[in-house]
Structure formats: C-alpha cells, structure tokens
C-alpha cells in the first residue's frame, strides 16, 4: 500500500481514538468556556482533516508499485525491532537484576546484535563498560540506579 495512504489512515485512526478519549474527559467544577476537552477536540478534528486530505489526495495519484527500497525498509524495521526488544528487556529486568549486570548485558547483546562476534574482547568491553557507566552515574553523579534483588538477598543470607 502507498506510504502516504498508510500515513493518512493511521492519522485518521489516531484522530478518532483521541477524539473519543477527549470526549470522556470530565468537565470539572472550575471549567471555563473552553473546558479541558475544548482544544483536544479541535486538535482531533484538525488531525482527522489533514489525514483525510492526505489519504484522498493519495488515492487520486498514480499507484506506485512496491519498490526494492520498501522491501529493504521492512528488513530495516525488523533489525530495529531487535534493539527495541533489548531496551524493553532492560526496562523489565533491571529492577530485579540490578544496574551493573543489566547494563553489561545491554552492551554485550547490542554489540552482538549489530555484528560483533562472541569473544573475550567483547566480554571484557562489556564488563569494563558497565563498570565505567556505574562509576560515572552512581559514584560520580550520585544517581541511584536500580540495585536489583541483591542487597535484599545478601541481607537475608546474613540474617
């Protein structure tokens, strides 16, 4: 399907969903003439209108066959998905595993995913990199990163 048509349809769907959500906003006791849902509704109409114009305009243009460029975009999107998964796993696991281990894992897996080979230099770079990140953020900048279950586990083992 044409890229602009997809953009138009996605925009239209977003506008409808946003309008429905805006319609459910409670007015509140201090509501002014415009109200908390006033501008959101206008934005929804605007987005819907622009999206419709884009979609209709595309329908009247010559159809463009799927090119090799679009096929390679699918491949690129699949590649990008891997990085999103690595980042999402980090967010989900770091409260349990803790910052130093997870950041080392992120460096290693992201490097492997992007063409690095499983080797001692890669493992060493991940460990040293994680140590450097921990040093900068936790030690130098005093930013408490998630510690994971380890402090609690050690506490229990001591008890």
């Amino acid at each position: 399907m044409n890229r602009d048509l997809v953009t138009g349809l996605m925009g239209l769907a977003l506008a409808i969903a946003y309008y429905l959500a805006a319609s459910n906003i409670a007015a509140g006791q201090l509501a002014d003439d415009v109200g908390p849902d006033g501008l959101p509704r206008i934005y929804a109409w605007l987005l819907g209108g622009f999206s419709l114009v884009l979609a209709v305009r595309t329908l009247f243009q010559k159809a463009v066959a799927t090119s090799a460029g679009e096929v390679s975009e699918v491949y690129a999107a699949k590649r990008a998905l891997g990085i999103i998964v690595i980042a999402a796993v980090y967010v989900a696991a770091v409260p349990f595993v803790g910052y130093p281990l997870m950041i080392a894992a992120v460096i290693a897996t992201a490097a492997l995913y992007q063409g690095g080979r499983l080797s001692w230099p890669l493992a060493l770079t991940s460990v040293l990199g994680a140590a450097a990140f921990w040093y900068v953020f936790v030690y130098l900048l005093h930013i408490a990163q998630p510690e994971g279950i380890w402090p609690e586990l050690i506490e229990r083992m001591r008890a």
Partner: protein
Amino acid sequence: MNELLDMFQAVARTPMIIVAAFAGTAWGIVGGAMPGVSPSIAMALLLPFTYGADPASAVVLLASTYLGAEYGGSIPAILIRTPGTNSAAATVLDGYAMKEQGKAGEALGISLYSTLVGAVFGVLMLLTLTQPLAQVALAFQPQSYVGLGILGLSVIASCSEGSLIKGLMAGVIGLMIATVGTDPVTGVNRFTLDHPDLLSGIPPILVMIGVYAITNLLEQTSTPPWVRTNSNEARLKIPGPLMRARLRLSQVIGCIIGFIEGLTPGGGGAISAFISYNEARRWSKTPEEFGKGAPEGIAAPEASNGAVSATALIPMLGLGIPGSNSAAVLLGGFLIHGMTPGPLLFTKHADIMSGFYAGKVISLLALFVLGYLILRPCIWLVNRPKHYLMSFILALVLSGVYAIHGSLFHVGIAIGFGVIGYVFKILAMPMLPMILGVVLGFMVESNYRRALVLSDGDYMTFIEEPICAGLLGLAVVFLAYSIIRHYRDAEKAKQTGLTA
C-alpha cells in the same frame, strides 16, 4: 561594557562554565565526526547529564556541543567523503577533492578556521540581538503569548521537509502530546490512563531523546559499517595570511547567509551551507575551480555553519521558538532547569544568561584549541567498530534517561518515542513540527484559556491586544510565504523532473 563585566562575574561565580564549554565542544567534535550523529543527536545524548549540573554550565555544555558538532561534521566529509552531519554535505564537494590532491590537512585547517570565523560573527549577533528582542517581549499579556505560540507553530510550514500536510499532521500530534497531564485551568486529568507518572505531562526532554537519539540508534542497525579513516592523513594545517585573504569574501558570504538562515525557522543547516557554497561560487573570480578542490568551497559553507550555530539560538532565546532541531534540544536543556526561554528569561535568570553568553565566547576558544588538538583522538574513536559505539550509545541513553527522574516508566516513554520517531522516518513525516507542538502546546493552551477567562470569553481580545494582533499578522504572513515557497519548489521540482 556592563554585559562584559557580567560575563566575567558569571565565570568567576561558576568556573564550571569553562569546563562545560571545553567538554561540550570536545564531545560535539567527536559526535559530529560520527556519520549519522547530527548535532541535535549529540546534544540529546548529553541532556541527561545536564540534569545534575548547575543551570549555566548545563546550557553551555549543550550550546558548545552544537558548535563543536558543526566543525566535527566536516572531518569525515573531507577525509572519507561522508558528511558527519547534514550541514557538512556541501563541504564534501571541495573538501574531498583537496584530500585527493594530498591537501587533507589544509582542507581541515580551512574548515576549522572558517567555522570559527562564522561562529565569532554569530556569537556577536547573538549577544547584540537577543536581549533587545526579549525586551520587546516584556510587555507580553496572556493574549500575546497565544500570538507568540501561533507564530511559533506557523514555523511548521517551513520545516515540513517537502510535505506540508505531513508537517501539519506532525505538528498537531505534538500538540496532542502536550495535552497529556493535568489540565492547566481546571486541574482535571487528561489522557493520563490513571498513571501517576503522567499527571505532570510528558516531559519534552523524553520526546527529544526518543525521537533524536533512540530513533537514530534504530536506524543505524541496518546501515553498513562506517568507512575507516587513515589518521596519518590528518595533520591539521591552519591557513597562512595569503590563504586567509583569499578566503575572506567566501567567509563573509557564509556569515551573512548563515545569519539570515539561522534566524529563519527551518532554514539553517544543510540549506544555508549549500546556498553559501552556491553564492561563493557565483561571486568567485574562478568559479570553474569549485568542485575541484577550491578552498573557498570549504570556507563558505563552514563559515555559514559556524554562524548558524549561534544565530539559530536568537529566536529560541528571545521568543522561545526553536527553529531547528538543535535549538529545540537546547530549549529542552533550559526547561530541565526550570527556565523557559522567551520574554522573561533575561529578567528572571539574568545571571545564568550572562554565564551562558560567557560560555558561548569560551567555546570559541575551545573550538580553536580542541579542533587542533583532538583531531587524532577523535579519528581513533570514530574508527572503533560501529557495533561497540552503538551499544555504548544505547547503554548511555538507558542510563541517562533513568537519571533524569529516577523512573523506569520514563525510560519506557523515551523508548516509545524512539519507536514513534522511527515510524515517522518510515512514513517520511518531519520530526521538528512534532517537537514544536510538544514545546509550544502547553503555552498556547494555558494562555489562550487564561486570556478568554480574563476577557469574559470575548474572542476579539486576541485582535484588540496590539502585540497579539501583530504576532498573529506575522504568523499569517510567514505561513503564506512558506506555503507559496512550498508550492513554488514543488512546481520547480516537477518541471525539473519533466526536463530530465
């Protein structure tokens, strides 16, 4: 004179400004030299680090990065025919030709010297023009802010990257994002999904890190490894008196065009560099040498880039309207520290702004010193395997975003915006209009409704208040001009296509 004294005092109060100016410039040169890492991405990667710094050093760090990246982009442009930044694309033409003739060091020297000349000119304009602009804006009423916001949004038309309708859609999406959180007038929750982290809205900094830094990481996963540079070729040679005299005209052209384009929203970067290149060729006595290693072909675009790195900040600081991606990220740096660029910035945070100006001046010195000294380490770093550099950038983003508010939910939001930015890229939707919507949305809505409450719902208040009326008039003129230019360019492109 007083301003100069204020700048000295600001540096004496906060010596970290000097460190920030040097560190920012160094990072900018390295970041700019990495193909695919634009000045705005290099700046966005630093945003989380600025959170713990004092406000003046934080904004100096970001602004110096912008300047450093403008020069850094020319290093791979000259050495490996790959512009590190979009604005360095014009430098490839003669820079690489000079390198092929064995004059890589000379080309790099011309680039550094010309960026510096442009930046000195730009900083002088910044110091001269920003404060008077903000002084005018001191008389602003709520209605005037609505006018200002709409003027800012009219910029969308000129930064839509070829598709006006998509630019408008992106702008509206940005405005929608700005409505998430507690309503500014009634205190009602909107689009928060009952999540406490969303009550104060989506911080613009998360949107910027997402759409600039994370989106770029996602794009880099499928691009080939960067070409390596031979560091032996890179012995920087500063131009002598004869060469300096030869470059003067092209640098003046670059400065003037950089100044005008920097002030014009959506006009800086690659556009101004190419216009400068073209004008330098037109005014040259030997236009036939351009493209074959003419030093003026490097001087004009690089002087223009240097000037833009300062003049693009004038509308952002004076009016709160970011006209480029880099200005938008710098605006994010101001917002992190509770400073809203625009009319009140210079009265509410006068001492910080003196520090900012001092930092801009110091960064000029930093560019000269570091541009000369860190060329080899910079090339060494850029030559590291791409998979290591990218994995470290991912780790930096994940650690840095968490550092902002200590919230994993915010890390998730930034990743989410990275995905949105990637989808925007696939759909060829411009990013800057969305950022403009996010940044200006709250100001427009809160002042629009406040003005209506104050005027008992009379919409004529926006026409009757002279500043607002003037700004709305300007917005209409600007919009009309951008639309006419858009359709004229489209028509020209169509005719060129037919001829071809």
